[in-house]
């Protein structure tokens, strides 16, 4: 069931990126990239190998559909590599077996912000300068605005489609 849900999430995010993101973007300034949410929503309890393979498959799909080729996978694997670390930094009092007991779908609003925003920023910090192949003030402005905008859409998708209903805010 969890696997089906993850596959649905991937499909939903790719569809969003294909159909809605172009019309929601402001050219050369803001580009929504909530597809990062797939890597964020992968369960912590799954084995690193499975997570790695799924991340690469999703990244390859993104690369095939959206140039520049290879960059989505490259940036996504950074998110996958650092997401547990970020989660632990944001939640210092986690129990020893937190990976088995914590679900990405059961995060509260504040928890989701502390977890998703830094990782979205990390993804965009790789993605935007490399895609533009420069580090100008325009790119940095676009990076900051797009991170905020992407997170906004991640939050909306998380709340509307992915979050468990019984979780407190």
């Amino acid at each position: 069931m969890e696997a089906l849900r993850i596959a649905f999430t991937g499909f939903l995010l790719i569809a969003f990126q294909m159909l809605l993101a172009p019309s929601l973007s402001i050219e050369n300034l803001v580009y929504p990239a909530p597809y990062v949410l797939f890597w964020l929503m992968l369960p912590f309890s799954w084995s690193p190998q499975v997570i790695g393979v799924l991340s690469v498959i999703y990244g390859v799909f993104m690369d095939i559909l959206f140039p520049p080729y290879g960059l989505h996978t490259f940036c996504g694997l950074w998110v996958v590599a650092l997401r547990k670390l970020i989660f632990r930094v944001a939640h210092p009092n986690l129990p020893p077996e937190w990976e088995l007991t914590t679900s990405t779908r059961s995060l509260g609003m504040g928890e989701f912000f502390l977890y998703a925003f830094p990782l979205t920023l990390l993804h965009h910090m790789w993605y935007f300068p490399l895609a533009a192949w420069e580090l100008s003030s325009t790119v940095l402005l676009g990076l900051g605005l797009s991170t905020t905008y992407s997170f906004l859409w991640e939050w909306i998708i998380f709340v509307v489609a992915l979050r468990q209903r019984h979780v407190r805010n």
Partner: protein
Amino acid sequence: MNLSGWLRIFLHPIVLWIAGQITAFYFFLSFTPEPKGAVKRFFISVQKGIHEVAFWISSPWRALKRVDELEQLTAQLQSQLSSLSDTTAYIPFPAGAIGDFSAVAKYKFLPAKVVYQSLLLRENYAILNRGGRDGIYPGLGVIDPQGVIGLVAETTATYSIMYALFHKNVHLAATLPRHGVIGVVGWKTPTLNSLFLEYIPLYVRVEPDEEVWTAPNSLIFPAGLRIGRVRAVRSDFTRGFHAIQVDTYADWSRLSGVFILIPPS
């Protein structure tokens, strides 16, 4: 180590992650124009650096060899000089490469050193130790003491990349000075020092050993520079032109000093 040990290493999350990152970044660098160009420029700079160091290390040996060559050349020139009745001028440019002096008189000949050259590519090139600071820019012709050798394709401040005549995309307007007809030379065979001269009409009677010069309508070279000699003539009756094999005067495998032709400003 047995198979399961290797599998355990290869399936380790960190190894998988690094493999995925390297593959993804390789695709990014290979299929995106700007990074691809930057990587190419970086490797050419590294290549140039390595060859300059190698050139510097080997310079004493090459200098000794050059002394021998110069001694022989001096002896040869002295013997030639003794046979001439009057010698009035020193020639400061590669006279051997020039068939007709009238068109090249206003050009400046800038000596350059070949830092690196490719030998086995379909797009052969050489790196020259002259760049934008010396007044070099893309599109200038390059000759060696024997004849035309290529053209400057890219420049940085300190070095230039010269596309050789033996580059699949380099074509030059050429003429057979005996007849005054104009054709195009290009490199089609994988054999170095051999070109094809095309578009010479069938009514022209081309003989082996005829000279091939740069044509007056060339946008890169002045007219009258030596390119090579006709080796064989094949008549292509389906196209109405000769297909002429030309042996170049310049020897790509023995390239050393070259001259960049700078036109009058």
